[in-house]
């Protein structure tokens, strides 16, 4: 099964210059280790809110592409976000869900996707206009390229292994990240 670290490495060139909001835990730590940028925001708590933040940014900055890196545990805590995103369909929002079927960062408890809940199916049924699935870094990279090209609200569900980094430590205080990120967004106006 695909490692999230390899998936992130494959799509990093798409993320590098774009506004990115990640969830907490392994996703944040792995993206940070690949190469932190001031245009990356790591939401270190408030599970479920990364996609809502991405929606807020996408509506506030329609000229910029916004990429949300979500997870199965986080998305399951805020499934309503799919119906809200689908209602407004911002063309500049790309929602990527790394589904490792586990609440990895809080102890590795299996989530409902491990017993058959289908997040891509829920996204489609919620009305997200373009939903794709990816099983390899190559297919994820192709899906991301297509989503960005199509200029259409997209959710991509990428199945990944429930393996994370040895440590979730990031040498970046939350507030430093927050103010850095805001400045970097303001510089794009």
């Amino acid at each position: 099964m695909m490692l999230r670290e390899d998936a992130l490495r494959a799509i990093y060139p798409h993320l590098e210059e774009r506004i990115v909001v990640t969830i907490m835990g392994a996703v944040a730590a792995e993206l940070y280790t690949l190469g932190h940028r001031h245009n990356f925001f790591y939401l270190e708590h408030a599970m479920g809110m990364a996609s809502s933040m991405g929606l807020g940014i996408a509506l506030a900055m329609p000229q910029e592409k916004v990429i949300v890196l979500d997870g199965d545990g986080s998305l399951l805590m805020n499934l309503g976000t799919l119906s809200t995103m689908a209602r407004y369909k911002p063309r500049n929002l790309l929602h990527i869900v790394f589904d490792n079927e586990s609440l990895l960062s809080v102890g590795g408890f299996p989530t409902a996707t491990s017993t058959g809940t289908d997040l891509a199916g829920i996204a489609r049924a919620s009305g997200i206009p373009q939903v794709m699935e990816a099983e390899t870094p190559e297919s994820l990279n192709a899906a991301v390229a297509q989503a960005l090209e199509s200029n259409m609200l997209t959710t991509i569900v990428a199945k990944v292994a429930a393996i994370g980094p040895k440590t979730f430590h990031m040498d970046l205080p939350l507030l430093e990240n927050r103010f850095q990120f805001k400045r970097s967004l303001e510089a794009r106006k």
Partner: protein
Amino acid sequence: MPVSVTNSRLIYEALKACDIKIVSALPETWLVHLLRMADEDPDMTLVRVAKEEESVGISAGAHLAGVNSAMLMQNHGFLAAINPIVSLAMLYKIPLLMLISQRGHWGEKDPWQTQGGLVTEPILRALNIPTWHLTNPADVPRRIKDAQTLALASHHPVAVLLTRELMWED
């Protein structure tokens, strides 16, 4: 419908005077005119959320993108949004302008509203969220502007409670 159109208009104009560009809301009776005004205004983005938690994320995103926003919700919606208020807005020093309809308080006839009405203010106090009870129409522009100013200066959520006296005509 006995929700005050006049006072809803006053509140909406006060939000416009604060340069609010995004309003997120979960529809409820007392907010019906405000939502219609936001919906009909081509310069306003109205986001109808499925649950009030989402509004915290939307306002946080809008703030980091340099756009002023406001949240419209019932006090029970505020109760539903407490975790992200604490672990997104407060943790990351994000200003929130929350307009909260205060159901279940003075004059409430519906028993099901009363438990939320009883706990709203103690919880706002426990969270150290500055709160203004908006009762007098003459206060509306000043207090909403003051709430936004304090939120932006303190990087903290603030609450304006929309009371029965202001919102309901019966």
